[in-house]
């Protein structure tokens, strides 16, 4: 990147705030399309399902879990992109994180919201969702904390709260910059959002300490969240699910999927918000290296899952494995292997990992593979458990397919709203990566 000219501090403010505060017709068209798709594909089918019951989905007596839960795992997984990666890179002092972490953390937040929506959709009678929360009620009813589903409620609530605080606190100095650059109602709002931040040494010092504590607390939290999601399955006795490897399998898959998600979002931000000066080749290359590492770990765990199933000698497990590898959904299984174990190895070639378009394609393929992984876990286990008289079949209904497509529009809508409310690249952290403003250079 010989022609790269480092921006000045003032240019950082101008570029990033302009991208946030100036809105063109393309943005409104994209937002309008996104809201429309979310409404038509997600909310209308969901309301229809609320009206007629969960029978509108393809779930049945032997397959009581379906696409809603596989999508829930996928979105929870995608959420591991931001907060976890951001926190790990923060405490390891990796400066390349600084230009990309804000958007990655936003991905976490919106993926979690989308995942939580899938729990509501799956629940059927969503108006009873508060029964899962330990709050006093007129029935004196309290949840059963021995259930992995309650672990989930606690973990996801904590993760959503911690991620929201993490992204908000990191944005406070930038809210002050928005306040200073605006007037009218926006200025009033950002005065409140920024808490009256002035950038004094005491404020920076306190924020630095608090932010590091947030990061330290969020890392074990993120690991626990996807481990707990895996226990929803692994703590059952269902062949194909009752595996001790599930927690690291889910966590690795989550970080893998999330990192690929960051590459996709980085491409879009760079192209459509003109962040070429901030989101650069170094980010692409480092994320590419991370993807190769995660792909290798993920592949190893997949091999171990097959090996331990074979080695167990359990006829139930072997039957479930055979169905997965050669049954109706076998093409999807092998597509997953192709996209998540083979395709990422292309990143080893420098020409691929330095090409934005190639990396975008690979990142999308990885996430297609990861959606398939989650679907296979759910769809090939429950309908194939133990004795043949319990065997069944699951195929998603049109409602489920529509809601799945709509969820991407829900996520996109939330993200599009976010980039107009919060600077998508951290102003002060980008400035920290620039040459210090010193007379004696």
């Amino acid at each position, binding site marked *: 990147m010989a022609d790269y000219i480092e921006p000045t501090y003032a240019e950082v403010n101008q570029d990033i705030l302009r991208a946030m505060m100036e809105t063109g017709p393309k943005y409104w068209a994209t937002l309008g399309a996104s809201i429309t798709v979310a409404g038509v594909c997600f909310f209308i089918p969901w309301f229809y399902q609320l009206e007629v019951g969960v029978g509108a989905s393809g779930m049945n007596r032997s397959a009581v879990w379906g696409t809603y839960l596989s999508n829930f795992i996928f979105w929870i997984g995608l959420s591991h992109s931001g907060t976890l990666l951001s926190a790990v890179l923060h405490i390891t002092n990796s400066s390349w994180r600084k230009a990309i972490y804000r958007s990655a953390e936003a991905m976490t937040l919106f993926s979690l919201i989308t995942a939580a929506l899938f729990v509501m959709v799956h629940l059927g009678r969503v108006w009873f969702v508060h029964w899962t929360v330990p709050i006093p009620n007129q029935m004196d009813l309290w949840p059963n904390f021995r259930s992995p589903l309650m672990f989930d409620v606690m973990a996801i609530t904590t993760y959503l709260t911690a991620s929201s605080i993490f992204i908000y606190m990191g944005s406070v100095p930038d809210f002050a910059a928005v306040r200073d650059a605006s007037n009218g109602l926006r200025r009033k709002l950002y005065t409140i959002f920024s*808490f009256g931040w002035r950038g*004094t040494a005491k404020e920076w010092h306190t*924020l630095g*300490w608090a932010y590091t504590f947030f990061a330290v607390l969020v890392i074990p939290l993120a690991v626990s969240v996807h481990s707990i999601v895996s226990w929803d399955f692994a703590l059952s006795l269902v062949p194909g699910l009752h595996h001790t490897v599930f927690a690291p399998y889910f966590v690795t898959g989550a970080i893998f999927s999330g990192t690929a998600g960051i590459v996709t979002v980085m491409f879009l931000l760079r192209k459509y918000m003109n962040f070429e000066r901030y989101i650069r080749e170094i980010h692409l290359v480092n994320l590419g290296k991370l993807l190769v590492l995660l792909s290798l770990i993920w592949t190893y765990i997949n091999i171990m899952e097959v090996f331990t199933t074979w080695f167990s000698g359990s006829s139930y497990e072997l039957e479930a494995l055979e169905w997965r590898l050669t049954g109706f959904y076998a093409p999807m299984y092998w597509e997953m292997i192709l996209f998540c174990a083979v395709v990422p190895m292309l990143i080893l070639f420098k020409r691929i990992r330095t090409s934005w378009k190639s990396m975008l394609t690979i990142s999308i393929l990885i996430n297609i593979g990861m959606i398939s992984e989650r679907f296979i876990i759910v769809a090939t286990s429950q309908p194939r458990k133990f004795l043949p008289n319990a065997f069944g079949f699951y195929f998603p209904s049109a409602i489920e397919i529509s809601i799945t497509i709509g969820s991407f529009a829900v996520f996109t809508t939330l993200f599009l709203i976010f980039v107009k409310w919060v600077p998508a690249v951290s102003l002060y952290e980008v400035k920290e990566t620039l040459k*210090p403003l010193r007379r004696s250079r």
Partner: protein
Amino acid sequence: MSTNVMGIFEFEDEFIGALRRLKESGFDELTAMSPIPLHEADHILGFGKSPVRRFTLAGTIIGAAGGFAMAVATALTFILPTSGRPIITIPPYLIISYEMTILFGVLFTLLGFHVVSGLPAWRDRIYLPASNVDRFTLVVECVEGDNSKLAENIILESGAEEVSRVEGDR
């Protein structure tokens, strides 16, 4: 009566130099504003380990104990025998306790940030918006009359672009 002297710097090293000289000259009421965190400024102003960590510790202890207690209290309120398993089952309750440890740790850290930093502070205070862009600003509270002249001299000699006397809350 006190006077506030404000100096604006273009360069970080000159700003740090001024801060150090003012501190050495006995000025203790200093406010340093910068667009990025400056660890040297922390050292000069004597900021050591932040009290935020005590809030975090308190939060994690309350969360751990509270989470476990909540799960136990729930189990004892509704006795739910499952095979021969104990009513109070430690392993699953440790998971609830773990999550609550983190939740309360985060919430108390947030509280600690607000208490220690004094934010939110929406009242009018001395502030230069450029110090959130590309300028470094120093505000010195001078109690004695001739003290302010000394502060002005130090700031100017250190390389400030501009020095002025300002009214208002520091």
